[in-house]
């Protein structure tokens, strides 16, 4: 899970490996803030799978790549 300057750099770094997925850094920041915002709260509880999947869905991170495991 890394930042890159451009698609060209990603392609070169992958060197033929499976592509994974790429999103703009602004979307990453939105995801990180939704995902980690409560991490230090004294009332923190573990996120359920459905909670986390809802975060991904709300941000438009859909499809098989972003599908969390059922258990």
């Amino acid at each position, binding site marked *: *899970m*890394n*930042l*890159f*300057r*451009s*698609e060209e*750099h*990603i392609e*070169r*770094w992958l060197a033929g*490996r*499976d592509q*994974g*997925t*790429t*999103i*703009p*850094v*602004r*979307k*990453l*920041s*939105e*995801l*990180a*803030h939704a*995902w*980690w*915002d409560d*991490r*230090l709260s*004294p009332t*923190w*509880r*573990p996120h359920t799978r459905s909670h986390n999947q809802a975060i*991904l869905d709300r941000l438009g991170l859909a499809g*098989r*790549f*972003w*599908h*969390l*495991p059922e258990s």
Partner: protein
Amino acid sequence: MNEDDLALRNLTFARFVELGRAPTADEVAAAGGYRGADVAAGWERLHAAHALVLDAVTGGIRMANPFSGVQTSHRVHAAGRWWFANCAWDAFGICAALHDDGQIETSCPDCGESLRVAVRDQRPDDESLLFHCLVPAARWWDDIVFT
């Protein structure tokens, strides 16, 4: 996760932020009135629950996500000090968890160029950068250190 393990988890994360690094089991034990062995056993349960990640060799904290217990190539300045993140996602996550703006420093894995991003009001100041995730969500925890 039962209430005792939840309390241990929250104390561990609180000590991490107070110290600016991963606490030892003895440090958490001293802060919470535990025995060191009970902290280590509790951390094992939290590791199994994916609430933190232990180093396989030392048994110390490798990840208290989004914070890293070891040095990485992802550094974040927020809340008045430097932190190590586990990955680029977690670098933004540190700003989120601390509820603060921040400065992220990392490098392009391809060319090694330094990449610096300021986060202000949850937004990066350089929106030209791209985030790449190699491992699908269903397999993130197969090997979380690699992910």
